[in-house]
Structure formats: structure tokens, C-alpha cells
């Protein structure tokens, strides 16, 4: 048994990053470093109005006074923020009417990723807003959405076309001062997506954005804002893959969700950025601030994430349950292998009456990786009859990895019911034996068990993603056993 285990482990660690390639598209880069001039440059390149430039400069001032957070259970060399590129845009910047005008090399890239835009356009009815190094290149299905009154466009376009909406909502959920990386993002965000669902509209398709970090050494600073007006519904998909690079790349995105009375936002993420090679060299630093607010009564925000990539993940999609009867959900599968480090979890802040939240977090660690769940459930005095259920399970594969749980549970209301449970274990030898006995090879058995273990979360993903997510789990872990 021992030798086969070793072989299997070796095999897993040798599974190279499948999506490692670089696209040779000419890139328009600003010089390295961060100062007011760079911010002015970004702003002028994007032809931004004065108020946005002021917002950026103010954020930059705030950022300069802040310190990098160091409480997460991750280790990495200090980032030199002056040694990064803060702006890079693919060169051919024409307004594109159809996909034919898109650089064929870019289209080829998407094919390698298994995302055929034409396919998706025709078959799945997914409108894809492709973000390639910070600038949107193609937006599809806008017309169909327009008929419904849904706005789905890049942040840059939104600033030009709907300035009053952006001015009202930008940084209203994640204030500039919120944290170090949110302030940095506010100062230098290059692009992102904006989505507005008007009153009573049910978005007919899954809105989807594919992110890629392409240019070496460019921090990617995405800004996403999703606003669901009264009684509307939207399902938003975010998926990411990035090419193989040796130097660590910084990604500090901010995602803000706002749900008005009776609205529902479902936000799903599949994150598969380059995790570094098997010695822990390279890989993406993913420091993301994601937060949603259930402002109105009976509103709902649901986060689903499958995290398999990035050298370091530092991410806590949160829900502020302000409206009475509002619901927050968090479903997560985080897989770490080799030298990956993940510190992820959620915050559920109960403010309104009869608010409910559910947290299901499944961690899988293999190789030399460390996987932490860090979460906060807070029941304020005003949150009468609040209800929370949290379950955080960890699966360990190999004796060199770590799985950690750091939940914070703060209850200030006696009518609240808060439950938290966590378990840590490995795949049982008896489980493997049972499968072997029935003619299932060890490697397949492990896939089976991990998939079953993560099923609760995978089931919450939209169909298009569920398939991809399952594949990702297999690539990340196949055959790993401790």
C-alpha cells in the first residue's frame, strides 16, 4: 500500500497546470510603480470623468496610511508595491461589433481554455463579458439583456454611460477604508463588470465573466458591482484561469453586491489561477474583498465558490443581512495542493429580524499546502430570531499538509440560534478498501470520495460550472491519498 500511495502522491504533484500558456498580444503598459501620476494616467487612458479621478486619488491617500494585514494564516515574501505594473491593456482597442473582429489569437486562447464563445453564445445562452488584462474586449448578448432593461457591461463603459448609478453605488458596500487591498483597488482598479437588474426583472440567463491575467507582472485590479433592484433575480458567474508565470502576480479585486427588497443575487465563482509549480515557485496572490448587502426585506445573497488555484488565497465573501427576513448563504470548496495556501471563509452579519444564514465550507488539502477556514457569524442585538448554521469540514491528504479552522461566533441576542460544527479527517482506508474490493482503482475511488464530499457545494453551482468544477477537482487532486 505504502509504495502505491507514494507513487500516487508523486503523480499528483507532477500534474502540471493545464492552462499554462501565454498569449502574444501586444500590450499597452504603464510604467512600473504606483504614484499619483500613474493613477492620473490610468484615469486619462480610460477617459474618466473628474469625480472618478478624485475618488481614485482620495483612495490612494487613504491607502498610503494603511498597513498590509498580516493576521491571515499564510506566509509569503513581502510584496513591493512599487515593483508592479498597474495598467496593461491589450493594444487593438477598437469598438468591436462582432466576434469576427476579435484578435484571432485571443479567440484561440479561449479555445484552449475550453471556452468557445460561439458555442456558448449559441448553445448555453450565456452572455460572456471577457475581461482580458483589465479591459473588456467583447461583450455578447447585450442586446437581449437590453430588451429587459438589464445593464451588463464593463465598468469602464458603465462609468461613461451610467455615471449616476456608479457614483451612487461604488464603494457603498466595501468602503475605501475597509482594508488595505480594498483601498488599493479603489485607487487603481482598471476595469471590471457592472450589472444592474431593474425592478421585478428575472435575468433570463446566467451572466458570466471570464477573467484572465495575461501580462506578466501586472496586478489585476477588478471592480465588480452587481445591483439587483426590488424583486429581481440574477445569477452571476465568475470564472478564472491564468497562464503560467514564474513571478508572483498580485490580484486584488473588489466585488460589491446589493440586493434590494425581495431581490436575489446568486454569485458563483470557479477560481483556477496558476497556483505555482510543485516547488511553490510562482503563482498568483489572490487578495479579494467580496461583500454583499441584503438591504431590503426578504432579499437573498448566495455565494458559491470553488477555489482550486492561486498560490495564496485570501478571500472572505460576506453578507450583511440588514433587511428583515433576509438570507445569506456561503458554499465553498477550497482545494490546495503542493505549496498552495488558502485562508478563506465568510462573514455573516445579522442585523435584521428573522435573518438566516447558512455556511457550508469544504476544505481539501494535499501536498505541502495549508488550508484555513476563517469565518465570523455575528448576531447583533437587533437581530431577533436570527438563525445560523455553519459546517466546516476538512479533508487531509498526506502528512505534510495542514487544515485549520478559525470561526468567530458572536451572539448578542437571546432569541438567536447559532450552530457551528467542524470536522477534520482523512479519506478512510476502509472507504478505499471498499471501493477497491468492487474493482474501482484507488485513484478513481479517491475522485469518487472527494466528489461526494464536495457534492453539497457543487450542487449549488449552475450547470455550466458544475461540470468544469468537477474536472478541476480531478485535475487538482486525482489519486492523492495520505
Amino acid at each position: 500500500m505504502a509504495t502505491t500511495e507514494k507513487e500516487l502522491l508523486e503523480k499528483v504533484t507532477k500534474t502540471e497546470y493545464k492552462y499554462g500558456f501565454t498569449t502574444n498580444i501586444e500590450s499597452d503598459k504603464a510604467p512600473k510603480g504606483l504614484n499619483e501620476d500613474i493613477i492620473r494616467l490610468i484615469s486619462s487612458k480610460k477617459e474618466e470623468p473628474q469625480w472618478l479621478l478624485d475618488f481614485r486619488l482620495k483612495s490612494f491617500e487613504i491607502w498610503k496610511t494603511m498597513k498590509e494585514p498580516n493576521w491571515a494564516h499564510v506566509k509569503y515574501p513581502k510584496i513591493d508595491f512599487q515593483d508592479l505594473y498597474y495598467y496593461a491593456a491589450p493594444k487593438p482597442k477598437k469598438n468591436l461589433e462582432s466576434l469576427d473582429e476579435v484578435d484571432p489569437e485571443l479567440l484561440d486562447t479561449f479555445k484552449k481554455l475550453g471556452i468557445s464563445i460561439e458555442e456558448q453564445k449559441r448553445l448555453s445562452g450565456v452572455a460572456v463579458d471577457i475581461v482580458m488584462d483589465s479591459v473588456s474586449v467583447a461583450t455578447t448578448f447585450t442586446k437581449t439583456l437590453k430588451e429587459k432593461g438589464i445593464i451588463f457591461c464593463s465598468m469602464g463603459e458603465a462609468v461613461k454611460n451610467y455615471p449616476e448609478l456608479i457614483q451612487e453605488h461604488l464603494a457603498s458596500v466595501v468602503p475605501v477604508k475597509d482594508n488595505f487591498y480594498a483601498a488599493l483597488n479603489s485607487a487603481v482598479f482598471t476595469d471590471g463588470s457592472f450589472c444592474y437588474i431593474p425592478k421585478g426583472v428575472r435575468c433570463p440567463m446566467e451572466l458570466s465573466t471570464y477573467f484572465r491575467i495575461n501580462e506578466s507582472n501586472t496586478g489585476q485590479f477588478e471592480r465588480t458591482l452587481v445591483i439587483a433592484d426590488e424583486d429581481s433575480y440574477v445569477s452571476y458567474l465568475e470564472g478564472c484561469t491564468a497562464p503560467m508565470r514564474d513571478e508572483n502576480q498580485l490580484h486584488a479585486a473588489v466585488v460589491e453586491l446589493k440586493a434590494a427588497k425581495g431581490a436575489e443575487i446568486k454569485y458563483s465563482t470557479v477560481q483556477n489561477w496558476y497556483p505555482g509549480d510543485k516547488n511553490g515557485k510562482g503563482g498568483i496572490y489572490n487578495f479579494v474583498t467580496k461583500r454583499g448587502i441584503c438591504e431590503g426585506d426578504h432579499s437573498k445573497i448566495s455565494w458559491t465558490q470553488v477555489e482550486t488555484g492561486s498560490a495564496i488565497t485570501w478571500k472572505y465573501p460576506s453578507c450583511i443581512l440588514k433587511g428583515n427576513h433576509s438570507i445569506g448563504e456561503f458554499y465553498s470548496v477550497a482545494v490546495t495542493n503542493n505549496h498552495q495556501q488558502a485562508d478563506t471563509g465568510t462573514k455573516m452579519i445579522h442585523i435584521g429580524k428573522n435573518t438566516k444564514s447558512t455556511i457550508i465550507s469544504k476544505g481539501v488539502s494535499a501536498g505541502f499546502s495549508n488550508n484555513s477556514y476563517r469565518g465570523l457569524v455575528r448576531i447583533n442585538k437587533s437581530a431577533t430570531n436570527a438563525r445560523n448554521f455553519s459546517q466546516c469540514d476538512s479533508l487531509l491528504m498526506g502528512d505534510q499538509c495542514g487544515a485549520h479552522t478559525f470561526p468567530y461566533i458572536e451572539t448578542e441576542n437571546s432569541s438567536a440560534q447559532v450552530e457551528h460544527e467542524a470536522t477534520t479527517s482523512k479519506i478512510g482506508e476502509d472507504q478505499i478498501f471498499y471501493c477497491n474490493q468492487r474493482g474501482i482503482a484507488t485513484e478513481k475511488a479517491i475522485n469518487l470520495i472527494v466528489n461526494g464530499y464536495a457534492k453539497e457545494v457543487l450542487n449549488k453551482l449552475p450547470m455550466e460550472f458544475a461540470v468544469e468544477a468537477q474536472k478541476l477537482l480531478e485535475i487538482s487532486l486525482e489519486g492523492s491519498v495520505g
Partner: protein
Amino acid sequence: MELTQTTIVAKPLPFADFVLPESKQGQNFLNLSFPTTRNEYWKYTRLGKLKTAKLKISQTSNITVETINNIVAIDRYQLVVFENGFLRNDLSDLTGIEENNTLSNKLSNEYFTALSDASFTSGINLKVKANTVLTKPLLLVNSSSDPESISNINHNITTQQGSEAMVCMLDLAAAEGSGFLNSVTRINAESSSNLEIVNLQVLGKATAIQNIYVDVAEDASFKHFGFSLIGQLTRNNINVNLNKTGAYAELNGVYVPSGSQHIDNHTYIDHIAPNCNSSELYRGILSNTATGVFNGKVMVRQAAQKTNAFQANNNILLSDKATMNSKPELEIYADDVKCSHGSTTGQMDKDALFYLQARGIKKTAAVKLLVTAFADDVVSRVSDEHLAELINAMIEKQISEN
């Protein structure tokens, strides 16, 4: 702006007057800074009042045998009493026990441990000889009788190979007294020994900070019960190292803060060796504007395969103004382990309450019954039945008063 002449007076460090500045323990303490809520370890416990409190060392003899006897019947125990940090020779039976009067060699970076190490006045050295059983359990009383006194106490307890002992620690503040009790207990459970400690805290308006450090050797078992019944500000830190194969640790507690009391329990179990088990059960019943804190951390080192660790924290909030902060943590570096924790905070089971009321039991009596039963899951684990009964009665009394 007009310049005015000011004299800058360096703020004295809290407690600096009590330490021996020339000793290495004193130096160690003076290098540490007073913990604030910005410090993760003290996130939920504010010590502002303690920082500015005017305290003194005071040697008095106010505690009587009756005071103690009113809480725990002393005839079943070997009694050792400390008042304001000083040994009360007249009340104590020191058979087989030495008074501890040497500074500990271990330099701690925990503020209050370092304080006690650098300035302690007294304590006991108890060594339970190999393959013997302590026939009469020890009743160790740490009391404070002066509202302005500071008591720094250091105890050392060793159970030698194959021995067995039970110690009841009573932390007591005389009715009108408050003061500050700062105690450190270092425990060494040698191989195949069994040690059970039952800690009763009846601390009135006093502030109490307790640090317990335990080393558990091969096949040894350590059980600790903490019953925090009354205490304006109580903080218990229990740190257990499971050093060798087969070591076992069980930490249990019930805290019943009421009024504006604050009770904080921190536990840390370090699984260093393989094949060790640990179990924790802490239950809280909070009323009025009381706050409770539970932070339990289980660390499983890479070598500690086949670890079995379980931790549960359940809380009942009886009032809308009470607050409970719970933080169960797992940090695991070995794969062949079974570790789990659970934490719940809620209210009384409405169905159970209704069931009792439907059978003619008054609501107040029903609540008392249910809460006592809730606590009894912990209390019934105490091996000494007399003591368990006594604790149950104390908890019941505490609840009916609120």
C-alpha cells in the same frame, strides 16, 4: 501658540512596583506590554480597569474555616489556605506539601504569568509519590479578602509515575472583598498517573486571572473542571501539552455569569505525540448583561498521527443583553486524525419548556430544571459524587437568584 512648560512624567508600568526588577523574571516581565483588545488573545476581554486599579500587597487573616466550610465541607479534605497570596499556616495542613518560595525558571511571554513569576508571594509544591494514591483529596483555597490586594500565587503539582490524585481548587473572594487574584499553576502528570482538578470559582467582585500549564506524559490522564459561578472578571487560560503516546486530557467547564460579569475561558491543547486523545466540553448560561467568552484551540502537530480530539461549546442566553463570543479553533498538520468541534448558542428548548409547563410546573421552576440539566452533562463527569452534588446545588442557586 504659546509655549507652556510641562513636566513629562513617564507613566509607570502597571504592576511594575510588585516585581523584582533585578531578577531575570522581573526583566522578562518589564519587557512585556499590557494586553489590550487589539491583541487577538485578549480580543473579547477588556482589562482597562485592572490597568489603572490601585493595588497593594496585603497580609491579613480574615478568612475563617467557617467561610470555607460554608462552601465546601472541609472534613473530607486536606485543607491548604492562601489569603491575599500568603499561606495561612494556622488553617493549613501541610502534610506531604512544601511551601513554594522559589521563582520559576521558565520565562513566559504571557503577561500575567510573567507577572506572577516575577512577583509571587507564595504557593505550594505538591509531589504525589510514584504508585501512591492521595487518599484525602486536597482542598486548595486561593482567597482574596482585601479589595485593594493583589495576590500572585504559583503552584506546582507533580503526579509521579503511576500515582493518582484529586485536587479541589477553590478560588474565593470574601463577600465584601474584591482585589486581584493572579495565579499560575504548573502541572506535571508523569507517565501512567491520573490527576483530576476541580476548580470552583466564587469570586464576587474580584478580578481573577488564572494560568494553568500542564504537561501530560505517556499514558497519563489529566482532567480539569472549571466551574465559574461568580466573578466580576474571570479569565482562565489552560494550556495542555500531550507529550507522549497515550496521553489523555479532558477539559470541562460551566460558567454562569450574571449581572455585568465577564467570564472568559481559553483552552489550548497541543497534540505533540501520536495516539493521544482529548475531549472538551464547556457550557455557558448567561443572564442579564453578562458576557462570556470561549476560545478553544486544538493543535495537532505533524507527528501526532492517530489523534482523536473533540471539543464542544454550548451556550444558553437567558437575556437579550447577554453576549457570548465563541471561537473554537482547529490547527491540524497531521492527516490520520479525527478532530471535530461544535459550538452552539441559543435559548431554552421551547418545546421542552412547554412540556413541563403543561404538566403543571411553573415556568421559573421549569427553566431552572432545564438549565440545571444542561449543566449536569458537565457536572456529572466529576468523579467525586459529593462534590458533583454540591456543584449542582450551587449552579441551581446561582440561576434561581437571577
